[in-house]
Every structure is written in structure tokens, then in C-alpha cells.
């Protein structure tokens, strides 16, 4: 453990935990409720991870990888080793987590000011950062799974932070239970792999898969099981239902966990474990991801709650990443994860800033009925909140995939990979359709959000005078993250705005799946490279289409949104009501189960009990009468009572042993030891 990277990682891992422990026990007694403990801890991790990042850039070694660990449990055949794995992906991910986490901590200083559970909030943020870093640094499946569960727990705690509100408490429960469904799959996958390979370490697992210790359908099932965990955490269809509800939590939490880091954990995990997915499993992954991307985007189009739009947008972007993993360009998925973390967190902070301002203005008017998150109540905020506006605009351009911004590069890489995949397997033409369709919708709904919120007339003119730009603690992270959405940060030392070639592609190189029969990384990259030009022109085309539609409808008001909505009828309804997913889960899963239970209960009560049991009872009764006499005279009086008497007498005598005196008991103990020695000896 004399390695600087490993040592830094350990500090990064455990500092937030220290902050958590300090805050949860002493938080309320510290000055300022101890927020400085959490903030300084997380800033320190930011410094350390930046140092690691710089060291990585100086080293510039694509194959850099270091491990360190110890044996946690050694039960002969069953052995669990813990340890941490540091490579380029880890370092980049650590920096992303530390950066977004620091922004959240700082942003919350003002956003959560005066909250009744202020110190506990910061404690949970620390717990979350610890467990997220645990996932990132894990070098084996078991410790990853443990951190995975911890992340689920801290997510639950933070979503339900305002648990006085029923909706928040329910949202927390829903998130936890939905994640649980996925986690069971993850666990089954881990166990399938362990039972064939006998180790939890990633390196051993990959070696075992390459050696063919686990093949065919078992490996596919294990891969799908593991992917089920990612589906839960990364909120993929059909387990996506928890993420929009999770927006009940405080906005910095939404930005940190439900946009940038926690939901990315699923993607990160599939990237980490990419080599062990079979082509069949990858196909499932690709379809789930692609469908989620377009499905969630189509919901986001009609939502009116600013955070709901962003939530569905997150689901959709996560779908993109999963799609990229499924089509084999998993480095593109990781690239998108990083860029998405920056601009999506920024969008959430921006929405938090808007909500904060709206809330404040409504508070001044003593209006507690109007929803401060509803975009229909906003409009024209551009002049009042310029910093928020410009930073959100930059992020919107990035997420829409406009050239010169980071989102363009990463999304383009994904789309090129998808297109290449379909070019070589034309039967999967739906995947690029999903991808490009979602790209168009993303551009559309994101500009819809910007126009509805910041442009036009304010819908509630009486509020406009009370709306102010948010304080520095909130705009600081906004500006920082917005600037990180510009492409140059990801392509240095190159300045070519339409090529993602740069340090990122140099340092994060794809590796070939270890499953025999997979396409090699070289092939995948080659195909993607050929599809690159076509993908780029197509994606720019659909983005322009999306933005143009948005401008026409929501900015120029050439078309009226309402007439379009009524023309599209049920499609609009479906989208607005999120395709009735919650209702359908209720109707088709929960209610039938309830009905089935009721039916079974009726069967049991009316048929079985009344006829079968009662008829049986009559026969028994008759038989009993006959045997009763014999029973009473013979067995009861003689045998049963006899045994009873013996037991009674024994108990009466044994009771004397229980004196309640310690010394008597000690005497028995010593006597017992002597008896044991005798038994052993002879």
C-alpha cells in the first residue's frame, strides 16, 4: 500500500464517511450545525481527485491500472477479498463524483439554509459520497454490491428528507423498493458467476470467463442479472418509475444523485463489467437502453413540472449510455456519462435556482398554493436571472447535442456506434432509430423548457418584481459546471470541435470482451469510425429539426402548443400521463395479485372450508365417538396422564435447581466442565 494513487483513493473513499460519522453524532452541537465539516471533507476529496487526475494526464498511460487489497474473510473454500482498483476510468469517475458532490455541498449551503434537519442532510450527503466512491473504487463484485446497497440506502434517506410530506416518504419507499427488484437480479448474477468461477475479483472473473469456466446461457443469464441491477439504479425501462418521483427530494440531491452520479452507477457498473457480457446479453442491454431513451424522451416532451422534465431527460440520457454499452462502444457510454454529469447537474442546479427564486417570490406574496416548480407559472425570467439563464442555456445546447459543446461529441460517438452496429446487423435497425429519434426529442423538449421558463412574458406578472438572482453559493457551481460543458475540456490538446479525439479517447481505450466469439474492440472502433460521418450529419439534422420545432412552437408561437396537443389526442395524453405506467403497474401487477388473493381466499373459505372441511369433520366426529371411549379409558388415564405426572414431578424437582443464585449456577458450570472433560477423556 505504498502507492500514492491507492493512498489518495483511500482518503477520497473514507473522508466523506468520517464527515458522516462526525455529523450524525455531533452535528447539531457543532457551530453552523457542522456543515463546514462536510464541505471541507468533500472539498478535500476534490483536491485529491484533481491531483490524481493531473497525475494521470502527466502519466498519459492508457493501460494504467493498480490494485490493492486484503482478504476480508477466509473460510477455506469461500474467500472474500476486499480491495480497490484504480485505473483511468476510476480516476475520471472519482473526479466527476467529487466535483458534482462539492458543487452540491456548496449549493446546499444556501438552498437548504434553515432546514430543520440541516446537519442530518449533510451527514447523508457524506454517506452517499462515501458509498458512491465505494462503487467506483471496488475491485470485486461483493464490495461493489455492498456499496451499491449503501447508495440505495442513502438515496432513500435523501429522497425522503422531507418525510413529513407523504409524497416524499412514498417516493423514498418507491425508489428503495424498485431498486430492490433490480438488486435481486444483480445478486443472482453475482452468485451465478461466483458458483462457476469461485472468485469475486474482477480480474479473476474476467480471466475465468476468458478461460471458458462459464459459458453460453449461464453467462448470458448472469450478464442479464447483473444488468438488472443497472436497470434498477440507472432507472431503465421498465424499472424507470422511481426516478421521476425521486424529484421530491431537495434539488441539490436530485442534481447529485438522480442526475449525475448515483444513476450513473448502473452505467458505470456495466462499463466496468463490460468484458463479461455475451453478445446476447449485450443485445438485451442495447434494446432496453434504446427503448428507454426514446420512451422517456417522449414523456419529457409534455411534462410541465420543470424537475419532471429534467428527470425524464435523465432517464432518456441514461438510456443512451446503456444503448452505447449494448452496442459495444462502451467508452462512448463513459464519455457521455462524464459530459452528461456536468451538464445535467448544471441543469438541475439551474432549476433549483429558478425554483428557489419562485419559491421566494411566492413566499413574499404569501401564496402557498401555486406550484413553484410548474413551468406554466414561469416565463420571462431571463432578465431577472441572467447567470442562471446563460448557464442553463449552455447546458441545454450541450444536452441537445449542438456542436462546440461537450454533449455533441459524446452523443455523436454513441450514435456512430449504434449506426455502425445496425449497418453490420441490419435486423437491428430499430436501435439507431431509437437513438436519432431520442436526439430530436431531446433538442425539442430542452428548448421548450428554456423558452417556457426564461422567455416570453411572465405568466404571473405580480411575482416578477420579487424574483432575484440566486446568491453566489448557488450561481458559483452553475457557472463552473456550465463552463465544463464546452467541448475543449474533453478534447485537449486538440481544438477540433467535431472530433472527440483528445486526452479522453487516448486514455480510455476500449477493451475486447473476454467472452469467446465477441467482436474485438478494434472491429467495433473501426466500424464506428466508418459510420462517424453519416452519424454526425444525421444527428445535426435531427437536432436542428428538434430545435426548429421548439422555436416555432414555444418562441415564435407560430403553432399553438394546445392545438397540437388536441390534434395528437391520445398520444399527448399518454405522454402527459407517462404512458400510464404507475397506473398500469397498479392495475396489471398489484390489483390482479390482490384479486387473485381474494379469489383464493374465497375458494378457501367458501368451498374448501364449508364442504370439504365440514364434511370431513362429520366423518371425524363419528369416528371420534367410537375411538373416544377407548381413548379416554385406555390412553388418557393410563398413558397420557402417566406421562404428564412424570413430567410434572420431574419439573417440580428440577425447579429446585433454578435458585436464581449466581453462585449455584457457577457451581453447575464448573461441574459441567468436569463432566465434559470426563466424556472427552473416556
Amino acid at each position: 500500500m505504498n502507492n500514492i494513487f491507492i493512498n489518495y483513493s483511500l482518503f477520497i473513499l473514507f473522508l466523506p464517511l468520517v464527515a458522516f460519522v462526525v455529523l450524525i453524532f455531533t452535528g447539531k452541537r457543532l457551530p453552523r450545525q457542522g456543515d463546514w465539516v462536510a464541505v471541507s471533507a468533500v472539498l478535500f476529496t476534490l483536491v485529491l481527485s484533481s491531483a490524481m487526475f493531473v497525475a494521470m494526464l502527466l502519466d498519459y498511460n492508457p493501460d494504467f491500472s493498480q490494485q490493492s487489497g486484503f482478504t476480508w474473510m477466509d473460510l477455506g473454500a469461500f474467500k472474500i477479498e476486499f480491495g480497490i482498483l484504480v485505473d483511468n476510468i476510476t480516476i475520471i469517475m472519482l473526479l466527476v463524483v467529487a466535483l458534482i458532490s462539492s458543487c452540491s455541498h456548496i449549493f446546499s449551503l444556501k438552498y437548504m439554509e434553515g432546514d430543520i434537519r440541516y446537519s442530518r442532510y449533510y451527514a447523508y450527503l457524506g454517506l452517499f459520497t462515501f458509498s458512491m466512491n465505494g462503487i467506483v473504487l471496488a475491485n470485486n463484485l461483493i464490495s461493489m454490491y455492498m456499496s451499491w446497497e449503501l447508495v440505495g440506502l442513502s438515496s432513500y434517506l435523501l429522497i425522503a428528507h422531507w418525510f413529513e410530506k407523504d409524497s416524499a416518504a412514498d417516493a423514498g419507499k418507491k425508489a428503495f423498493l424498485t431498486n430492490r427488484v433490480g438488486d435481486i437480479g444483480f445478486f443472482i448474477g453475482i452468485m451465478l458467476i461466483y458458483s462457476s468461477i469461485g472468485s469475486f475479483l474482477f480480474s479473476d472473473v474476467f480471466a475465468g470467463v476468458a478461460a471458458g469456466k462459464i459459458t453460453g446461457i449461464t453467462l448470458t443469464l448472469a450478464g442479464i442479472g447483473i444488468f438488472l441491477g443497472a436497470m434498477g439504479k440507472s432507472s431503465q425501462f421498465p424499472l424507470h418509475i422511481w426516478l421521476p418521483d425521486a424529484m421530491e427530494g431537495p434539488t441539490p440531491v436530485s442534481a447529485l444523485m438522480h442526475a449525475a452520479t448515483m444513476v450513473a452507477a448502473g452505467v458505470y457498473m456495466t462499463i466496468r463489467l463490460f468484458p463479461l457480457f455475451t453478445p446476447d446479453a449485450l443485445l438485451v442491454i442495447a434494446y432496453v437502453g434504446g427503448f428507454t431513451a426514446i420512451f422517456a424522451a417522449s414523456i419529457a416532451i409534455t411534462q410541465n413540472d420543470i424537475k419532471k422534465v429534467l428527470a425524464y431527460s435523465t432517464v432518456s440520457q441514461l438510456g443512451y449510455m446503456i444503448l452505447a454499452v449494448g452496442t459495444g462502444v462502451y467508452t462512448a457510454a463513459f464519455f457521455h456519462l462524464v459530459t452528461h454529469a456536468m451538464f445535467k447537474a448544471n441543469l438541475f442546479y439551474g432549476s433549483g435556482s429558478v425554483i428557489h427564486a419562485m419559491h421566494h417570490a411566492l413566499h413574499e406574496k404569501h401564496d402557498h398554493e401555486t406550484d413553484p416548480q410548474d413551468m406554466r407559472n414561469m416565463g420571462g425570467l431571463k432578465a431577472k436571472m441572467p447567470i442562471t439563464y446563460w448557464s442553463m442555456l449552455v447546458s441545454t445546447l450541450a444536452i441537445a447535442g449542438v456542436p462546440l459543446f461537450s454533449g455533441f461529441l459524446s452523443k455523436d460517438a454513441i450514435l456512430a456506434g449504434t449506426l455502425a452496429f445496425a449497418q453490420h446487423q441490419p435486423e437491428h435497425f430499430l436501435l439507431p432509430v431509437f437513438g436519432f429519434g431520442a436526439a430530436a426529442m431531446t433538442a425539442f423538449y430542452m428548448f421548450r423548457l428554456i423558452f417556457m421558463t426564461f422567455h416570453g412574458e411572465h405568466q404571473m406578472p405580480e411575482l416578477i418584481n420579487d424574483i432575484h438572482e440566486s446568491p453566489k453559493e448557488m450561481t458559483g457551481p452553475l457557472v463552473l459546471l456550465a463552463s465544463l460543458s464546452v467541448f475543449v475540456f474533453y478534447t485537449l490538446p486538440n481544438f477540433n470541435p467535431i472530433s472527440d479525439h483528445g486526452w479522453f479517447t487516448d486514455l480510455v481505450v476500449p477493451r475486447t470482451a473476454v467472452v469467446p466469439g465477441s467482436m474485438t474492440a478494434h472491429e467495433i472502433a473501426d466500424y464506428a469510425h466508418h459510420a462517424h460521418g453519416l452519424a454526425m450529419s444525421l444527428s445535426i439534422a435531427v437536432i436542428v429539426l428538434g430545435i426548429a420545432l421548439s422555436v416555432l412552437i414555444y418562441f415564435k408561437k407560430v403553432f399553438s402548443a394546445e392545438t397540437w396537443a388536441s390534434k395528437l389526442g391520445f398520444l399527448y395524453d399518454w405522454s402527459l400521463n407517462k404512458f400510464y405506467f404507475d397506473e398500469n403497474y397498479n392495475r396489471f401487477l398489484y390489483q390482479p395479485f390482490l384479486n387473485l388473493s381474494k379469489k383464493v381466499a374465497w375458494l378457501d373459505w367458501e368451498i374448501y372450508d364449508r364442504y370439504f372441511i365440514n364434511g370431513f369433520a362429520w366423518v371425524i366426529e363419528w369416528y371420534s365417538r367410537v375411538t373416544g371411549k377407548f381413548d379416554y379409558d385406555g390412553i388418557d388415564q393410563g398413558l397420557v396422564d402417566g406421562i404428564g405426572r412424570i413430567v410434572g414431578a420431574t419439573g417440580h424437582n428440577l425447579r429446585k435447581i433454578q435458585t436464581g443464585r449466581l453462585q449455584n449456577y457457577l457451581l453447575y458450570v464448573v461441574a459441567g466442565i468436569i463432566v465434559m472433560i470426563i466424556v472427552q477423556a473416556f
Partner: protein
Amino acid sequence: MDQLNSYLFIAAILFSLGVFGVITRRNGIAVLMGVELILNAANINFIAFSRFGGMNFDGHVFGLLVIVLAAAEAAVALAIIINIYNNMNTINVDQASQLKQ
């Protein structure tokens, strides 16, 4: 003397007497004295094994730790006994039986 067995026998006698004291005494302080005898017996064994196992000093460290432990135990036990005495006016362990059914 340089016979391990003689030390072990002395320790065994002390141990047996200590257990006897713990079992038979009614007075809490006398019970405590029995415990001290047991601890001393264990300590003699530690030091004796250390001496006859090639004179390594690990046993001495354990002996030291046991002595410290005995001191801590005696302090807490006497505090409890004094507390019992204040509450019940007796320190006979078989009379302090309020928790008994």
C-alpha cells in the same frame, strides 16, 4: 526452581481455591477476592510459560495486561458493591436478588 510443573501446580491450586471462593462466599467483596486469586493463577501460568518457552517476553506483556485488567475490574466491581450497599444495606450477593422472579 526450574521445573515448569511446580509452577503449574501452584497455579492450579490457586485457581481451584479462587473458584471455590467465588462459589461459596456470600459476601460480594469476598467473591471479588476469589476472582483476584483466579487472575493471579492465570498470570503465574503466563509468566511460567514465558520463562520455560525459551524466555520470550510476550508472556510478560500479557501478564501486565491482566494486571491492568484486574485493577479496572476491581475498581468497577467495588463501585457496584458500594452502590448495592447504599441501596439494599447488604453486600451479600444472594440477597441482592431484586431482579429475580
